């Protein structure tokens, strides 16, 4: 295939991947991934450290009949004593995944098996006429137990015009002073598929997938003002609170794909001017054929984030943003040649 000499030069620059069985789709890890994708494509099987936290879903069904809604909220309570913070009524019907009972018109559904897969939860919700996919993602401390994602029309094809509402608990969960988003209220027999994602504690070695602002009350950098610090100052400050910097990134400018400087005006050879701007030697490439189509215009994104190695970051670089990365770790964006985008 590579008859072109330049392609052969490029081939010579190919990074060498030293992997034997790992690239084999029949190897155990690859086979496991394949079957997980088609059976789950969910993240509910991740460890939820059930010894320390218990998730309770409360669904006021009788009230729902009156007001036309079913609510699901996640509450977290110490569970080591086996007690529950919510009243549990008569002996629940046998259920392996959700423990459902009714008291004063409220269905209390307690998650017994936080590692159960999505299908199992879905079946429980289906009994209330709902198509709900419930997932948990590792989250920073103030987001644990909070609703982090709600999609009331998952496939985008639903026709139910009613709204899924977010239930907030009293208290100040966000820097804006809003309540904590702890659940959703779903109209009974709601026709659209719903996806609900709650934050949970990360397991060993997991990275956060949902985070609050790093400096929010209750988060690792509470009370700090890292933006504008030098990297050296930030390192010192972080050392005092037992946090490490996991990664550095920096915004850089790049020619836009097909429309380098935001203008569509090509230069003499029909290419965006900036692509060739540094070249002053005569061009010797063959002329374009009459039927060659013009180059497609790009989408105008003219910058990107590059990951920096430790060596590429100076102590004098200025911190543009710090975000939570994992327990004990933050990631840092340093000021670059272009604005954040």
């Amino acid at each position, binding site marked *: 295939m590579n008859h072109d000499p330049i392609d052969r030069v490029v081939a010579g620059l190919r*990074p060498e991947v*030293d992997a034997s069985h*790992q690239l084999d789709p029949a190897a155990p890890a690859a086979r496991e991934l*394949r079957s997980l994708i088609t059976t789950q494509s969910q993240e509910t*099987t991740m460890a939820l450290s059930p010894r320390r936290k218990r998730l309770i879903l409360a669904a006021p069904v009788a009230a729902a009949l009156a007001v036309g809604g079913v609510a699901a909220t996640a509450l977290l309570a110490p569970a080591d004593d086996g007690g529950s913070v919510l009243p549990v009524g008569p002996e629940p019907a046998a259920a392996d995944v959700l423990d459902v009972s009714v008291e004063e018109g409220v269905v209390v559904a307690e998650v017994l098996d936080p590692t159960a897969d999505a299908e199992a939860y879905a079946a429980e919700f289906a009994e209330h006429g709902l198509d709900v996919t419930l997932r948990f993602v590792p989250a920073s401390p103030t987001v644990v137990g909070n609703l982090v994602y709600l999609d009331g029309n998952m496939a985008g094809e639903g026709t139910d015009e009613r709204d899924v509402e977010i239930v907030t608990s009293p208290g100040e969960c966000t820097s804006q002073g809003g309540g904590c988003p702890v659940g959703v209220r779903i109209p009974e027999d709601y026709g659209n598929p719903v996806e609900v994602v709650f934050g949970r504690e990360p397991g060993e070695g997991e990275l956060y997938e949902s985070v609050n602002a790093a400096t929010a009350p209750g988060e690792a950098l509470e009370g700090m003002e890292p933006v504008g610090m030098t990297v050296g100052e930030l390192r010192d400050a972080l050392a005092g609170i037992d946090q490490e910097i996991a990664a550095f990134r920096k915004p850089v400018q790049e020619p836009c794909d097909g429309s380098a400087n935001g203008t569509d005006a090509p230069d003499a050879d029909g290419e965006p001017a900036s692509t060739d701007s540094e070249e002053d030697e005569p061009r010797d490439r*063959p002329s374009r054929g009459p039927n060659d*189509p013009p180059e497609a215009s790009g989408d105008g994104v003219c910058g990107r984030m590059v990951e920096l190695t430790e060596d590429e970051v100076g102590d004098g670089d200025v911190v543009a943003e710090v975000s939570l990365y994992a327990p004990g770790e933050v990631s840092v964006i340093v000021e670059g040649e272009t604005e954040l985008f």
Partner: protein
Amino acid sequence: MPRQHPARSRERSVARFEELYESAFGDVLGYLLRRTEDPDHAADLVADVFTAVWARIDDVPSGDQARPWVFGVARNVLANHRRGARRRNALAARLRADLSGVTVTPPEERDSGLGEVGKVFRALPERDREILSLAGWEQLDAGQIAVVLGCARGTARVRLHRARGRFARALRKAGLETGTRTSSSAVTPHPQRSTSLRGADR
């Protein structure tokens, strides 16, 4: 979503997915490893790629367009990764552990004679590097590259042609001789090393 399909249709979808997975997994993972040089991220990325392929299994083109189409998904996943999106794909836990034993060696580390050539290559615009590496590293032809990039075949051909031209000029400008005229060898920064330049493939 595939899991909402009727049973028969789901069976067909699973079979189609497994066939694609078998044929493309190694190549796509290799592509991600070469482009990120990071086995830890590559496991999550390859899981993201095939999760996306499964979610869109009904959109996969038929025949020999399917494989480059999967590369197109991989390219998008990689672009998101580079824009700073980072997530752990829970399905990749075991693969991630498995890939921790993988190493990716940049060419200069196994052949210092490639340092200058590599420098010139890295100075090219990203779009040139991308299309050149799709051809030179992943062995895709212009028609397949068109599927990956989501552009017309002619456009891919022109882009590839121009990228080659720019790389050749940049190499000459850096005083590195290219084989574009003689077509007998690749690049010869030191003529006696020409074999090592090409010997990288094994």
